[in-house]
């Protein structure tokens, strides 16, 4: 097994799926000759040619709208939106069509497409390059919303997303594109979309997170063990829609305490839904109010202040300790 960054792991998924299946077409701005601005599609143009690593004109609605037609035709387009902050120019195509074509046509047509987009903060970028607006997509019936947290699960989930018969919005936490490496098997590996995993076992408290926030969350769990003698269980959601509520509600029934960590805004964010599911399914075992550690309800500030916006180990620790004291 090779040690890979998330960028390399995503590239491996694309390279292998394109080799397996000539229906898989990668398209987007700069994904061809340039290999993508983050190099996720590096080498695809050379290996598979310009018709399968397709540079598009600069128009997000065009990319997604055309990919919908390609998917209806029977291809498996993987559309890249260069930054999730520009996905709004295609939002109508996603909401009005990608999410509904199966439903509208009563199953006659389906849209097996993936929309990949780097998202979230932490890379000292310009405005519109730091948001976490996964809730828009998780809120929309007919879509799937997947967010990996490391190289290995990114690769396995992207393979599953490409093979999925329905549209998958695949948000890649760009702050960890190259932040660390993991062993990624050369042989095929898939992970089921709609299933969360236990990233760390424990019985005193449940920490629920996903994407780049898994790192501070896991670091906080380690500190709780070292400094407080507390064993936190950490759930990595991996898919926001359909949400696997069995795993985290079962965990909370065991621990009685839950802290949800995400960098998306708090109001109407994923944490609100997760907390509701806990209330619906695990209320009687709760020992303390559910806490949320999230981005604030402000536009993500320019990068001089972005670290203050982002949840970090200290904020997770403090919420966890409050929960434990209750």
């Amino acid at each position, binding site marked *: 097994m090779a040690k890979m960054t998330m960028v390399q792991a995503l590239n491996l998924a694309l390279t292998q799926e394109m080799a397996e299946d000539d229906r898989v*077409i990668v398209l987007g701005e700069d994904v061809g000759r340039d290999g993508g601005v983050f190099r996720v599609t590096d080498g695809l143009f050379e290996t598979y040619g310009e*018709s399968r690593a397709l540079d*598009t*004109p600069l*128009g997000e*609605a*065009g990319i*997604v*709208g*055309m*990919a*919908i*037609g*390609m*998917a*209806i*035709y*029977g*291809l498996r*387009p993987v559309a890249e939106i260069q930054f999730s902050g520009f996905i709004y120019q295609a939002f*109508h*195509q996603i909401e*009005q*069509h990608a999410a509904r*074509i*199966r*439903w*509208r*046509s*009563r*199953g*006659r*047509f*389906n849209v097996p497409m993936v929309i990949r987009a780097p998202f979230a903060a932490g890379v000292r970028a310009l405005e519109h390059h730091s948001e976490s607006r996964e809730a828009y997509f998780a809120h929309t*019936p*007919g879509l*799937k919303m997947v967010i990996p947290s490391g190289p290995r699960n990114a690769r396995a989930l992207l393979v599953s997303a490409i093979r999925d*018969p*329905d549209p998958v919005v695949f948000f890649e936490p760009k702050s960890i594109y190259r932040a660390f490496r993991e062993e990624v098997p050369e042989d095929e590996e898939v992970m089921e979309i*709609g299933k969360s995993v236990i990233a760390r076992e424990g019985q005193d408290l449940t920490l629920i997170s996903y994407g780049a926030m898994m790192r501070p969350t896991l670091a906080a769990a380690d500190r709780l063990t070292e400094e407080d003698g507390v064993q936190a269980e950490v759930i990595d959601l991996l898919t926001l829609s*359909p*949400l696997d*509520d*069995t795993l985290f509600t079962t965990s909370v029934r065991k621990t009685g305490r839950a802290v949800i960590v995400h960098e998306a805004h708090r109001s109407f964010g994923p944490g609100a839904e997760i907390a509701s599911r806990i209330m619906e399914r695990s209320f009687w075992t709760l020992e303390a109010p559910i806490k949320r550690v999230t981005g604030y309800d402000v536009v993500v500030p320019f990068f001089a202040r972005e670290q203050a916006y982002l949840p970090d180990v200290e904020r997770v620790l403090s919420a966890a300790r409050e929960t434990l004291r209750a």
Partner: protein
Amino acid sequence: MPREVIEIPSTIEYLTILDQDGGADPALEPELSDEFLLSLHRWMLLGRRFDERMLRLQRQGRIGTFAPVMGQEAANVGAAAALRQSDWMVVAFREAAGELMRGRTMEDLLLYYGGYNEGGTIPEGVNNLPTSIPVGSQALHAVGLAWGIKYRGKDDVAMVFFGDGATSQGDFHEALNFAGVYKVPTVFVCQNNQWAISVPRSRQTAALTLAQKGLAHGVPGIQVDGNDVLAVYVAAREAIERARAGEGATLIEAVTYRMSVHTTADDPKRYRTDEEVEVWRQRDPINRFQIYLRTKGLLDDEKLAGLEEDIDQQIREAVERAEKTMSEPVDPLVMFDHLYAESYPHLVDQRRELADALSDKES
């Protein structure tokens, strides 16, 4: 030489074959079989009569809001008739006459406008996309279908319909641009019916024609008399031939008129005059074509009466079938169908929640 002239294609051809009295320009008249000419007429007339029936059903509260085709039958049928079975037809919401010709059923359309998702079905083997309501958005799907056709080395085409209002949308321009860049077999059919609800064509764009909007994207355009089914057919056939030959997309502007309401929720008296409507009534695409057919000896009063009777019977049967379905108790649980290839626990739970609520109501 600080200033020089760059030559760009800057003319738009206008095509009309039938005059207002149904006479054909002998230089332009296409050679078409009697059978084909009569089928154009049949589908146009069916479209008109079906529209009229739907309007009555809507006024009686038996179906919901819909967008009548009335006046645009030639634009609908002329373009759709140039397609073959394996081609794709991508519609907006004012193409019922053309859709019926391609194999969507009247029963499904009635159910669709009666509020039943079941009516959105497209029969297997019919390459039509379902009704697309967000204006102009479907143009990109036709480009994607055409891209797939080209990728697979087929010589089919994807034809997309939209109105004059759609030409103000970004998606329309992105679609033309992408189609131009990839040189894909897309045929863009703009049914310029002069009105986007209450906004006239003159307030939609300062451009002289809508057909010229393709030029900046490297897509040739042609304007046709949209109330002349022969002209629409010939323009569509030429565009399809270009597309099949690998020469890329064409934008056809069919100049026509929405003789009825935008939708049944609209009152055109608020924004246009009866005089204007009357001018266009004189150019009725069906009347014009009937005169042409009579001149050719293909139609007379007796044949027309027989055809009317036949169409009436067909519509009556479709209405009966649709109304039978609509008279039966509706199954609300159908709303959970076809969201994804498979169902998921939250949907299973919510479906059960509704089923329980329904059975509580019954008991």
